[in-house]
């Protein structure tokens, strides 16, 4: 394959990372790759990625799935004799690849400009507010505020059907962007790699790896062998998120009720468990990043913070919303509902297709594509 060398690759990539800028220090001893518990023949990282970077092989980097196969335990950076920080390179590469897959160019803007990211969040927040005020029955009379006319009636103010419509609109948009981006990822990882010809059947035999890796993150567990809580908390956080997302997007009629169910009711139980999962996870990760406790929390890009902070605000307003509702505080409930939406919608719109949270799709799909490639390669060798 003919390679074009991009002399600006290093500078371009640096914009996606924290100011650690010493990847050129690497002298290729191979300790990082040999330390990594996840690397294997056929997908060697992170040394190889550093090599691509040093040589300016942009194409090689753009078409590699390896950055997504790394879960950043940080052993490589700890053992590096040159402090070249390979772990942080893999992190920056994930940001870079997100921007490569994203055809709209928004991801690149979000990752390289703080102001752009914050402005986007504010604009979406405002849009949500305007829509909410126009399409729901925000109380105007005194009676509605106090909740004297029959308790807290969310469905009267914001009927679940209308919110549901908004949900679907948002989910559809997000799905459209995310799926097209994954299509781009597929083009990059499989189609552009001329060395492998993938037989159609391989896509079916490996399809389970997407599902399994999405729900168990078993690779992550393998990586984090001396620090189990990290994997457990991350998995719990992810499952809680999926649970809440499913309840809100698919079963809002059942989830958003005006009558207060008893505590053992599945609606409340599931809600509580997921909230705990989210909250514990967020606090744990924020704490890690503040204390810089682990190798992977030493360097925080601003997008890491926006993601955590937005998620934290969404969860917090969700908890408050529930608290106000079951205590019959109508006025507070209605306002919190609006604030909750104003946090939730921009968080999802920005993070899921264009920023950090896209990894919930990219990671399992990267493993899927890598497996597909590997099985194709095996067949080629057999022939």
């Amino acid at each position, binding site marked *: 394959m003919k390679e074009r060398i991009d002399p600006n690759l290093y500078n371009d990539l640096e914009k996606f990372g924290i100011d650690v800028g010493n990847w050129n220090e690497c002298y290729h001893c191979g300790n990082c790759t040999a330390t990594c518990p996840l690397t294997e023949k056929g997908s*060697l990282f992170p040394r190889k990625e550093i090599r691509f970077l040093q040589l300016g092989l942009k194409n090689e980097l753009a078409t590699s799935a390896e950055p997504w196969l790394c879960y950043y335990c940080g052993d490589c950076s700890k053992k590096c004799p040159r402090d070249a920080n390979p772990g942080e390179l893999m992190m920056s590469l994930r940001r870079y690849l997100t921007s490569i897959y994203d055809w709209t160019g928004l991801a690149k803007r979000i990752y390289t400009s703080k102001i752009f990211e914050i402005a986007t969040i504010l604009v979406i927040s405002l849009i949500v507010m305007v829509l909410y005020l126009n399409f729901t029955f925000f109380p105007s009379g005194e009676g509605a505020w106090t909740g004297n006319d029959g308790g807290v009636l969310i469905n009267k103010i914001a009927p679940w059907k209308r919110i549901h419509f908004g949900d679907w609109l948002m989910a559809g948009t997000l799905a459209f962007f995310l799926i097209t981006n994954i299509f781009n990822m597929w083009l990059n990882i499989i189609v552009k790699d001329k060395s492998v010809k993938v037989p159609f059947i391989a896509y079916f035999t490996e399809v389970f790896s997407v599902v399994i890796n999405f729900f168990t993150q078993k690779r992550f567990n393998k990586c984090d062998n001396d620090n189990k809580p990290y994997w457990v908390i991350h998995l719990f956080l992810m499952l809680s998120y999926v649970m809440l997302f499913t309840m809100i997007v698919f079963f809002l009629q059942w989830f958003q009720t005006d009558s207060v169910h008893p505590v053992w009711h599945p609606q409340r139980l599931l809600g509580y468990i997921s909230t705990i999962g989210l909250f514990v996870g967020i606090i744990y990760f924020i704490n890690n990043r503040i204390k810089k406790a682990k190798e992977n929390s030493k360097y925080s890009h601003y997008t890491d913070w926006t993601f955590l902070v937005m998620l934290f605000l969404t969860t917090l307003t969700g908890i408050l919303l529930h608290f106000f509702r079951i205590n019959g505080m109508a006025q507070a409930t209605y306002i919190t509902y609006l604030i909750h939406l104003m946090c939730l919608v921009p968080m999802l719109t920005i993070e899921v297709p264009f920023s950090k949270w896209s990894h919930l799709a990219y990671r399992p799909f990267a493993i899927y594509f890598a497996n597909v490639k590997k099985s194709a390669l095996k067949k080629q060798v057999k022939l």
Partner: protein
Amino acid sequence: MSEKKLTAVFFCDTRNGQTDTVDIPAIAEYVKKIPDVAVIWDSKTFPTSYINKIVRKIKSGNIKRIVIAGDMPGLVKNTFTKAMYLCGNNPKDVILASFKEYGAVTKADTECAKAITACSVLGIPFELAAVPDENPGHPETLVIGGGIAGIQASLEIADSGNKVYLVERTGTIGGHMAMFDKTFPTLDCAACILTPKMVEVGQHQNIELMTYCEVKNISGEPGNYKVKILKKARFVNLATCIGCGICVEKCPTLVPSEFDSKTTMRKAVYIPFPQAVPNKYLIDAENCRYVKEKKCGVCVKACPVNLCINLEEKDEEVEITVGNIIVATGFKIFDAAKMEQYGYGKFPNVVTSLEFERLVNASGPTEGKIKLKTQNKKGNWLFTKEGKEPQSIALIHCIGSRDIHYNKYCSRVCCMYSLKLAHLVKEKLPESQVYEFFIDMRAFGKGYEEFYKRIEHEGVHIIRGRTAQIEEKDGQLLLRSEDMLNDDILEQKIDMAILAVGLEPREDADAISKMLGISRTEDGWFMEANSNSDTVTTSKGGISIAGVCQGPKDIPDAVAQASAAAARVIQSIITGKVKKSIKNLQLENIESKAKQLSNVI
């Protein structure tokens, strides 16, 4: 000077965050006063990346010469040369003033740095202007350290008919070289080269050998140093000991032998190794039960010579006067236990290269048979002749060298000695598999590349990619490394792993440098007067350095440097004069000398 050329001085400040550096603003202040200097540029505010701006600055200031001053001025020379060319000036009028080259590093060296810059501005080489005065010199010489470098230097000076005091810290001369089995690349027996020299030192009438002694204090000035030497109590009379060895048989205390890298045991009364010079016993005060607790004393009773062993002997101090001093204090090896990932100290069959060097040596723990360690009844792992032969041996390069967390520099000898050890394994166990895991193979010397090729042809597997970790599995060692040239990750079971440990300055290097008044590099090695043109003398007059204490080097280089240092000393003895320290020179003197010279030119 034929015509007046306006000069710009550019200060290239390459040090970030370090505090103990030369005071660049003070130097700038001083340099401004020199008549030809038109402008001072500072690298912090100067647009070094934009050549057009430099060209504009040169043209607007009508600059004809540029002096680049700093630690590593060569870094930016290209830019300025190009800019001068673009301006139509002579590109050769870009002159460097390198502080580091002349050893001006710390804040205390600011005056020296001023002089270096001034000389460059005046267009006079610093060496020509900064010529120290001379003292009348004492003809006797002190050599500190009895390794191969110290031995070589002592012999050179003694053979020229001059008196040498050779002070050695341990009980014998020989140093590290005596511990080696073979030398690279010729595979000569190290002892066969070294022991004749040792014997010669012992018998030389011009050499006063002072083993088991330490230099305590040095006073006086170049040419007339008063040196206080501590003679540690040896407890055995050197003159009367007949070397029969009966005391060793009777001594009840066992201690790990330093000479065998702690792979064997010795007694508290011992001779470091059979070929030791002087070949006389000594008692190790730290471990002797009588010296410690006033118990035992068996050796005294057993000794056939009357009054030979005197356990009440005390340390004494002697003072000598010398004109010149050669420092050849050598090195220590890197402590491999610091790199936990290799499990040295945890897994018995992970050994350092120096331990392995003793293992393959015929006088080592197994009489030269390569064996795995076995566990004795007390649970200690030891090399014994009954041990199993290893089927596979791995050599891991760059342990503690080229690593930001330990030592940044390359230790220079590890690649070659690893190849040598690989050869020795292949020679003794032809059926075994030998693996070398390296980062870069540095076969830089005469005959080294050929040696490397030879070892490759012997069937040693040389793999690019340093092993990252060693674990234990099923009684074997499990190594994990990247095979870079084969795009693969290797997980291998190996019987024995040898860590190619690097060289480090000795723990007492700092104390010695302070005692002698010589400076050290940031890595801790002793600093030479000029890194290019004077690699054996130091900034202190009458003190030369030789061997690894100046920086890692192999045996041929250490010997060459020792001879060079001896040549300097002999030169000074013949002229009867010893140069004073460069650092004692006054700035005004250097400047006036430089001005005088520049007028002549």
